């Protein structure tokens, strides 16, 4: 960047008002524009020199760059009037030749006259003068013609502002868009009609004229330059004014000429049109021929009488005919048309005659084989008023097929929608109902015909929500956000009669092309809501009840997790509710019972069977486990699945104990009974047997006495001995007769369910057997046939066998003590009952004697049990026997005939 002062000279014109003042300005400046490019090289003109028209901050003030006084100070040259005249002549000549070139010529003249590097004109733009336009430039800056500087911020602006010639140097310091190297710019304003319209300027780009070093042959701009510039400027102003006037004149002339031309043109145009039309017609005919032959559609020519003249191949194909068919038959297009379309044809013909064209419409033609082809036909007369024309025919078969398929699909969709159990309502982007299915009619009470076309909000949305619906719709359409769309929501709907009711709603938006459709699926959930409400009510009611009832209550969800215990439960167990929820309730049970209870519960939960277990539960009050029975029933829901389990816990400890005592008492009683019976029996037996015994003993003594006689009375002795034998025999008979005694006893015989008899008997001995540490198990077959017999007697047998078995296991070696009672069907007509123990079993030595009377291994036993039992069973037509049990112990079996009356076997003697 050159720091030397660079002079720029710009001179304004005079400001005498009224007369056109010709102030010539001499502006000399050197420089290059602030484009970052060297002016001397080939360059493209910048696009935009006017980023703004206001003066930016920080520029040096105008005074800093002005050095106009230099013009006067510098030694002046002698006026070179020749140069001046030459320049003026050039401009005049240019003016005469062509006013359009005048400005350029002026610029050239300045260039030569001022002996500078660039020269030009800056004219204020005619649009209000906001900028100067470099209308013409000569010299180095010629490429920049057409561009310019802002009015307020440029050398031109300064000149006009000061209204005098100005010499600038280094004006780039103020006008940053002008980046000079060595500018010396002289700028002169010139006026037209008293208004400053611009400046003329000259620029020195280099220091070739020696501005700062005034050598004799080197100088910058001086006053001579100024003078010439001024002269040129004045002349330019005048020239410009003249140019303007001439321009006006010319404009007027031009306008007139233009009008004339226009007229001529119109005439010419019409001719041309006619020619053109002809050409067009020829061209068109070619095109038509092309169309006809292109076989895109059927085309034929016709006359109003109905005759067909020419046809193209496509048409023939459509109607499956040949040209000969058409021609020979004198085919008329009326003939090709089925009857029902005739009316349409007549209308079309009328249109043709009236307007010259018949709009395309659908109809059908007959094919040669009599089938119909759907077509679209349009026709036109060749000339209006004529009676010949052309028709084009489109085969709509495909289209019809597609239409049909579409119609079917639509029908299907419609029937789906109609058969839907939900109301299906479609709404467009304006909120108007476009579809309304059968269910919607039913639910909301609007017929389809009534609903279509109405705003959806006016039909189904309750009044208080309508505004927000509209808002929501608008919001969606503008933002694409739809919080209620594409999900199930529960809101209130309104029926036609004004009743509001709860509905479940899903809205799905669909965009097709540019249009939105909103499809709503609506379900009337009044029923469901009612059920839910009822359920809630009943739950509430239940809850109130459960908290008041003085019983322990609980409930569980269908998966088996406890979800509620009433206060009684909490008080009883001393546990807080949270600990009992889910599986926590197991905590309150005795550890030995918890597993079984949990398993039973799970089974019930899975199968839906009523739940009942007896367990020991922990009572906080006395810190002890007490027997409780907990039971629950499922609450079934509408579809058959389980909604809830409801259960109770009842403390039955005291009852159980009482039962235990009762059982004990009963067992005692039975025992006593047995003892008494046995006692009585024994007494009876004793008495019976004492008779022969007395005979034996008495005879025995007398036998001895007779023998002790002197002499011994042998005869009597023998008699005594004989009596003894007899008596013994009698005694034996009595024993045998004991069995017969049972037969003689009147017994109550009826059909019995053996399993019942067994379980009844066991209930009597259960506690006693348990006390002996024996576990009593049963395996009783289902569907045992009934047995004819005496209940009491059979119970006696079972009692006897069970007590025997239990007592057999009294020794420690029998661990574990297990007694198993089984019942099953062995033959079709026989049932078998078995009592098995894990005691020492039957000694093989004694095996045969177990059933013998008076056989006992017990110190206090009488030994009649098994004997009597066998008698009873045999009286029932069965048999009783014993076997060894595996791995140890004994099994006593008895078999009884089933069902029908069995004849009693004869008594043994």
């Amino acid at each position, binding site marked *: 960047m050159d720091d030397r002062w660079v002079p720029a000279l710009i001179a304004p014109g005079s400001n005498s008002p009224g007369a056109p003042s010709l102030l010539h300005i001499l502006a000399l400046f050197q420089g290059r524009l602030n484009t970052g490019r060297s002016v001397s090289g080939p360059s493209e003109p910048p696009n935009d020199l006017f980023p703004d028209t206001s003066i930016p901050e920080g520029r040096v003030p105008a005074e800093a760059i002005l050095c106009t006084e230099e013009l006067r100070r510098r030694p002046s040259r002698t006026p070179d009037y020749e140069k001046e005249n030459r320049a003026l002549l050039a401009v005049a000549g240019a003016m005469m030749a062509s006013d359009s070139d005048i400005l350029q010529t002026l610029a050239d003249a300045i260039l030569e006259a001022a002996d500078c590097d660039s020269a030009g004109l800056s004219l204020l733009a005619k649009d209000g003068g906001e900028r100067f336009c470099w209308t013409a430039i000569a010299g180095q800056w010629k490429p920049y013609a057409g561009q310019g500087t802002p009015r307020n911020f440029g050398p031109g602006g300064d000149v006009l502002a000061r209204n005098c010639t100005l010499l600038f140097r280094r004006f780039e310091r103020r006008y940053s868009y002008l980046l000079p190297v060595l500018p010396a710019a002289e700028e002169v304003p010139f006026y037209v009609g008293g208004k400053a319209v611009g400046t003329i300027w000259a620029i020195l780009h280099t220091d070739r004229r020696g501005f700062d070093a005034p050598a004799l042959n080197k100088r910058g701009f001086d006053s001579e330059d100024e003078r010439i510039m001024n002269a040129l400027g004045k002349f330019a102003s005048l020239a410009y004014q003249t140019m303007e006037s001439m321009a006006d004149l010319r404009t007027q002339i031009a306008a007139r000429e233009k009008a004339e031309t226009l007229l001529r043109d119109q005439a010419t145009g019409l001719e041309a049109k006619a020619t053109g039309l002809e050409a067009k017609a020829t061209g068109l005919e070619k095109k038509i021929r092309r169309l006809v032959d292109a076989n895109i559609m059927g085309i034929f020519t016709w006359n109003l009488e109905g005759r067909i003249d020419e046809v193209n191949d496509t048409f023939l194909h459509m109607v499956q005919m040949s040209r000969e068919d058409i021609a020979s038959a004198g085919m008329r297009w009326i003939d090709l048309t089925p009857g029902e379309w005739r009316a349409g044809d007549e209308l079309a013909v009328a249109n043709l005659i009236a307007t010259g064209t018949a709009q395309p419409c659908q109809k059908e033609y007959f094919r040669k084989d009599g089938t119909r082809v759907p077509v679209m036909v349009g026709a036109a007369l060749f000339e209006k008023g004529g009676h010949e024309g052309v028709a084009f025919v489109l085969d709509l078969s495909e289209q019809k097929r597609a239409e049909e398929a579409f119609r079917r699909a639509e029908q299907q969709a419609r029937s789906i929608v109609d058969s839907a159990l939900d109301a299906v309502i479609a709404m467009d982007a304006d909120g108007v109902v476009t579809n309304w299915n059968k269910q919607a009619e039913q639910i909301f009470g609007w017929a389809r015909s009534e609903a279509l076309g109405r705003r959806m909000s006016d039909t189904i949305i309750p009044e208080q929500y309508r505004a927000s619906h509209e808002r929501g719709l608008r919001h969606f359409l503008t933002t694409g956000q739809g919080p209620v769309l594409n999900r199930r929501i529960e809101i209130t709907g309104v029926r036609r009669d004004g009743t509001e009711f709860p509905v479940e709603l899903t809205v799905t938006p669909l965009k097709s092309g540019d249009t939105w459709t909103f499809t709503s699926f609506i379900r009337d959930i009044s029923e469901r809501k009612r059920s839910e409400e009822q359920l809630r009510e009943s739950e509430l009611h239940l809850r109130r009840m459960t908290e008041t009832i003085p019983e322990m209550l609980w409930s569980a969800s269908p998966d088996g997790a406890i979800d509620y215990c009433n206060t009684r439960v909490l008080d009883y167990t001393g546990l807080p509710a949270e600990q009992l929820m889910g599986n926590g309730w197991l905590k309150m049970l005795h550890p030995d019972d918890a597993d079984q209870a949990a398993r039973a519960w799970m089974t019930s939960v899975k199968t839906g069977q009523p739940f009942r277990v007896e367990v020991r539960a922990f009572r906080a009050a006395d810190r002890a486990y007490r027997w409780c029975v907990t039971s629950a029933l499922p609450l079934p829901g509408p579809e058959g699945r389980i909604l809830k389990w409801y259960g109770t816990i009842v403390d039955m400890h005291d009852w159980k104990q009482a039962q235990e005592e009762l059982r004990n008492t009963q067992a005692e009683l039975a025992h006593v009974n047995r003892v008494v019976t046995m006692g009585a029996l024994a007494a009876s037996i*004793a008495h019976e047997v004492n008779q022969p*015994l*007395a005979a034996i003993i008495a005879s025995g003594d*007398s036998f001895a006495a007779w023998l002790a006689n002197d002499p011994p009375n042998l005869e009597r002795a023998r008699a*005594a001995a004989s009596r003894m034998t007899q008596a013994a025999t009698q005694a034996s008979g009595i024993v045998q007769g004991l069995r017969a005694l049972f037969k003689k006893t009147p017994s109550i015989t009826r059909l019995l369910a053996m399993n019942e008899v067994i379980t009844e008997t066991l209930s009597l001995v259960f506690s006693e057997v348990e006390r002996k540490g024996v576990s009593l198990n049963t395996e009783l077959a289902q569907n045992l046939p009934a047995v004819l017999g005496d209940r009491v007697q059979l119970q006696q047998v079972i009692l006897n066998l069970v007590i025997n078995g239990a007592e057999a296991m009294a020794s420690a070696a029998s661990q574990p003590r297990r007694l198993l009672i089984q019942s099953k069907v062995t033959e079709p007509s026989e049932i078998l009952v078995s009592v098995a123990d894990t005691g020492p079993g039957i000694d093989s030595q004694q095996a045969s004697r177990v059933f013998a009377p008076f056989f006992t291994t017990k110190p206090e036993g009488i030994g009649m049990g098994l004997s009597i039992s066998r008698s009873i069973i045999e009286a029932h037509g069965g048999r009783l026997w014993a076997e060894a049990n595996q791995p140890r112990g004994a099994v006593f079996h008895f078999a009884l005939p089933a069902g029908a009356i069995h004849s009693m076997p004869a008594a043994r003697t």
Partner: protein
Amino acid sequence: MSGPPCMVFVIDDDPLVRDSIADTIASAGLPVQAFGSTTEFMACPRPDVPACLILDVQLPDLSGLDFQSELTKSGISIPIVFITGHGDIPMSVRAIKAGALEFLTKPFRGPEMIDAVRKALTQDREFREHESALTELRGRLATLTPRERQVLTLVITGLLNKQIGGELGASELTIKAHRGRVMRKMRADSLADLVRMAEKLSIHPHTPEHPTKVE
């Protein structure tokens, strides 16, 4: 058979038992008769000798105890030895209270039975003797005139003849004569003897206030 005359009766429905008991008695040298029922027994004439009855409590037609009360009602007194197959204490108590001599439960030993029988026979003998003596006395009493009866009654009260006369309105001499006859008829050896006889006959001494009843 030897020994004083007596008879043992056995009633038991069981023939073996019956025969055996009869044999037991026989082996002890005692005469015995056996019956199968009380009816048979009653139908048979009884010898007038000390006797004893061995009676089974449990009899089909009539229980032994009932028979016992029947015998008593009909005035037949014969010591009974009950035998039974039961050993019922209340029954035995009842029986003894009703006068049974013994209550034996079957089976019993022979000697046991014989002892009971002998005891019974002895008792019966004594009883019979007692009874016959009494009959004798009664016979003697029957020979007394009513007056003598009156005198007897007053004599045993210890009244003097004179007092007796005063009582009866007879002279002392008369009384004395009656007294003599009474003593003779009654074959009393002494007054004390007579008193004993009267006692046996259940003649009560009476005081003058009570008039003598003539039986």
